[in-house]
């Protein structure tokens, strides 16, 4: 049973600057901010290390931090420029029964995160959903396609804060 | 060879047990009821169609705000000081005319979130569940009790009252402006006291 601080220090000395910081100010569970390109190596270590054994990824969720600046282009369409999209990984160990939350942030224009499907197979569809909803591209993901929206939905990514519904999709009126 | 015979015997035996169960159920009385002739007896906390008792409704818009699918649409008009709108059952004086109160039962999800915040408990759920319609528009129920012309009339005389008030204010503002102009004419005499009185009115 290791507390997030111990894990953080352990990772800090293992990976140096790619493990950025441990955030404990916000309520409930603290999380570790990690560099998006190193995330699969860190997760591989988290899973295989004898004292950590994080063998199950509970949840992987994308989030639009909406911390960019609001820009109103020509016909009043409000869109957010700059700012970050981030991905939270909630992982746990079924044997040692301890939990951890990782956070990864990428910029909004070219969001790229390395996939963790090799580490935990359950990440496959979660990542496809994060791509479908936020447009976060997961590098060397087995088959990165849209999962919930229609496969040829080219009107942007629905869960972003500045998403506008299209008027028509293949001739069908997108309601209200 | 042994499990070959065991398979055959177990297969036969379990089928016979299963048949015993279903045969026993031939003589168990049926649990179903014949719906249109026999109506099910509903408990009293039943949640089906909403009903709004308009004399108690003070137009406070709490239910419309609490509704997750915003299927309640309310418009109110302030009453003229002179009018008397009667009081709600628990004695509160009503101040607003409710001119439109529509609930769209095609969108309503019957979650009862609107019933709890209502201060006068005038919106509650009845146990009527057979209210299907041929057209979707006819599922929008209009609960307002005053006649449509009266609603227009209420709006109109509220606008008149509004216009009258503007006219007075404009007149008062014009009068105040003239006084100020006159005061400036003899300003060198005593500038200070004037504007103190003006803003006192």
């Amino acid at each position, binding site marked *: 049973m290791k507390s997030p601080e111990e894990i953080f220090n352990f990772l800090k000395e293992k990976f140096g600057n790619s493990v950025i910081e441990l955030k404990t100010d*916000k*309520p*409930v*569970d603290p*999380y570790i901010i990690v560099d998006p390109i190193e995330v699969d190596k860190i997760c591989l270590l988290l899973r295989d290390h004898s004292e950590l054994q994080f*063998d*199950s*990824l*509970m*949840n992987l*969720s*994308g*989030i*639009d931090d909406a911390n960019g600046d609001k820009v109103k282009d020509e016909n009043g369409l409000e869109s957010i420029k700059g700012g970050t999209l981030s991905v*939270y990984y*909630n992982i746990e160990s*079924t044997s040692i*029964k301890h*939990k951890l*939350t990782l956070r990864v942030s990428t910029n909004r224009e070219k969001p790229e995160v390395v996939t963790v499907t090799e580490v*935990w*197979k*359950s990440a*496959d*569809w979660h990542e496809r959903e994060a791509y479908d*909803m936020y447009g976060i591209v997961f590098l060397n993901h087995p088959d990165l396609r*849209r*999962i*919930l*929206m*229609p496969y040829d939905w080219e009107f942007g990514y*629905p*869960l972003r804060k500045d998403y506008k519904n299209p008027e028509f999709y293949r001739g069908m009126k997108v309601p209200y | 060879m042994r499990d070959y015979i065991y*398979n055959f015997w*177990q*297969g036969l035996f*379990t*089928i016979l*047990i*299963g048949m*015993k*169960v*279903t045969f026993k*159920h031939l003589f168990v009385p049926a*649990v179903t009821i014949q719906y249109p002739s026999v109506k099910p007896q*509903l*408990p009293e*906390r*039943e*949640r089906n169609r909403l009903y709004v008792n308009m004399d108690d409704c003070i137009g406070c818009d709490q239910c419309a705000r*609490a*509704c*997750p699918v915003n299927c309640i649409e309310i418009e109110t008009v302030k009453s003229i000081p002179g009018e008397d709108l009667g009081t709600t059952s628990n004695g509160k004086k009503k101040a607003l005319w409710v001119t439109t109160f529509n609930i769209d039962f095609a969108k309503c*999800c*019957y*979650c*009862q*979130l609107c019933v*709890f915040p209502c201060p006068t408990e005038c919106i509650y*759920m009845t146990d009527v569940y057979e209210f299907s319609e041929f057209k979707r528009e006819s599922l929008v129920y209009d609960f307002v009790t005053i006649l449509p012309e009266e609603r227009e009339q209420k709006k109109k005389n509220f606008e008149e009252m509004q216009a009258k008030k503007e006219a007075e204010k404009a007149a008062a503002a014009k009068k105040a402006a003239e006084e100020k102009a006159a005061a400036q004419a003899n300003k060198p005499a005593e500038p200070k006291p004037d504007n103190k009185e003006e803003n006192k009115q």
Partner: protein
Amino acid sequence: MALKTEEMVLNMGPQHPSTHGVLRLELQLDGEIITNVIPHIGYLHRCFEKHAEAMTYPQVIPYTDRMDYLASMGNEFGYVLGVEKLLNIQLPERVEYIRVIMAELQRIASHLVALGTYGADIGAFTPFLFCFRDREKILNLFEITCGARLLYNYIWIGGLSHDIHPDFIRLTKEFIKEFRPNVKELNDLLSYNRIFIERTANVGVLPLDTAINYGVSGPNLRASGMKWDLRKDDPYSVYHKFDYDIPVGKGEKGKTGDCWDRYYVRVLEMEESLKIIEQAIEQIPEGDVTSAIPKRVKPPEGQVYARVENPRGELGYFIISDGSLNPARVKVRAPSFVTMQVFPELCKGFMVADVVAILGSVDIVLGEIDR
């Protein structure tokens, strides 16, 4: 010269009697044997997460009901636990007990649907009606308490919408007394039937390590032999006060983790839930259930991951609040979504009739997958 055979692609769904909802399975067949299954989901996508961002915290509860519409109490319970952790409200004991009773009743009702439709998929139609006859009694219990039969909006943030009905306790005792022999009858009729065992034993075997790697949870994981139940391993609410054990698949009729084990674990779990309800009814304290409900729910900025043992597995809510009245993000980790990922692994090498058997045994609900 080998006979030239080419693969036949058979589309099962989205309108197919046994896909438990709108799911399209693209089966690549070599004759009758399946080489690969590609599930296509998204037909029932109602953008729950986008709705949740536009609603205030209490208004999201009716939306959570509609995700796994067969176990709405469990969905509400998970969401409400998360928000209460953010607000760290102290709940009266009575609320905790009633929530446990309702969640366990909902587990039995949901398992009855799973077992009934599973029998109907394999061809035995009578157990389906027996299960639904018992489920109606549970729905009546829910109806007298909160007025609704399927989507309740009963568990609120900080309490409950109504207190339980005065004769709820008597009716629940009656239900438990009537229900126990029915479970035995269901076993005679279906569980030990030789043809049913023939159709389900050694079919769709889920090995334990793939299960953990794919993040499978709930009855499907327990059937593969792992004693993992959130009510015991990550206790929430007042589950630590009751004693009940966790049934685990032992591979009585075939390898552990096959369809029969997944079916039989659910039958045993119903028995355990009855035990919990009986103990909860005895120890239920007095108190007012609506005392701790806050007038305006405005949690501080932060994020929380709360999870609950739903009949289909571990249902998790990742709620991020930015201090305003509306949640900034509510991500739902649906158990059926994760189970559907492992489904192609289960089907390789089996026949078309087995796909129906395996799909029935993993017990997925499409409302939860597509959200």
